[in-house]
């Protein structure tokens, strides 16, 4: 059976098409989900793509959090549904309190758009089990508000529990605390990442194929997951 991976489109989403394509290249069936539809249509996992949902009005992700589809996703994530939030999707996961902390304006105030080296720190999550611990991957980063912040206690907890999923190496593009590029929830099914793995899945358009690992990971996870 082919895994079905939902990709949510909010008003202002930009990378939903690329995310759906990455799901397909990884060998799963992408299922387009609509922000206003609370139904998840039987998907096995969900990707919240990058972009500027609801115009990023108020704060990035603050309004998307209240979309009907998000209410369902928050409940399903508590039940173990794998959820990957990329860029704006990461911001939405933080606003929805599925992940701790917040993403704030890049410290240097500039939008950063470049190919970025990351070190995979945790390979036990639903979205990173196809990587080797410490593996370096090259995927594009493109954000204006990607500076991860949390209080010291939260940061220490993330580190102690192995919930920092990826860190920037070779230069921190946005001032994120402790070079954090991606984190996970305690159960490891919800991952938020600021750079864009869906843009690094084929040689024609990406700097590498490293991003594919996030999408093949969830397929491995679903095969191994108890029904």
């Amino acid at each position, binding site marked *: 059976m082919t895994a079905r991976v939902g990709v949510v489109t909010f008003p202002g989403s930009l990378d939903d098409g690329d995310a759906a394509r990455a799901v397909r290249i990884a060998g799963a069936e992408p299922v387009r989900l609509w922000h206003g539809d609370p139904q998840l249509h039987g998907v096995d996992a969900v990707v919240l793509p990058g972009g500027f949902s609801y115009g990023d009005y*108020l704060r990035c992700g603050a*309004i998307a959090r209240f979309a009907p589809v998000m209410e369902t996703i928050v409940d399903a994530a508590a039940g173990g549904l794998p959820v990957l939030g990329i860029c704006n999707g990461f911001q939405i996961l933080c606003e929805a309190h599925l992940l701790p*902390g*917040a993403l*704030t304006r890049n*410290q240097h*105030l500039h939008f950063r758009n470049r190919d970025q080296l990351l070190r995979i720190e945790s390979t036990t999550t639903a979205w990173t089990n196809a990587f080797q611990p410490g593996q370096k991957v090259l995927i594009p980063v493109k954000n204006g508000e990607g500076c991860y*912040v949390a209080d010291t206690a939260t940061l220490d907890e993330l580190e102690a529990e192995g919930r920092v999923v990826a860190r920037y190496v070779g230069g921190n593009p946005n001032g994120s605390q402790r070079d954090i590029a991606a984190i996970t929830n305690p159960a490891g099914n919800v991952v938020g990442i600021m750079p864009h793995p869906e843009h690094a899945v084929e040689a024609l358009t990406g700097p590498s194929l490293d991003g594919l690992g996030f999408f093949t990971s969830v397929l491995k996870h679903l095969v191994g997951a108890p029904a």
Partner: protein
Amino acid sequence: MPRVVVDVMLKPEILDPQGQAVANALPRLGVNDVASVRIGRRIEIDFTGEPDLDRAREIADKLLANPVIEDFTVHLVETDEPADARS
């Protein structure tokens, strides 16, 4: 009808790069005696009936501010114009 005003500010320990950029621009105006600038957000809420401060606090806590990085205050201000004149 009084209006509810919600002021949202970044917590003191959160870096405010916008405020810093403004502070760094002030010497170009010839202003050299400003130690720091912090930028926040003011939200004005007109209720259809009597202003409800508890409801406004709930709105601020759930949506207008992100308590992870921001603090907010809620207060009433008198307005001359009736709320329903602002369509």
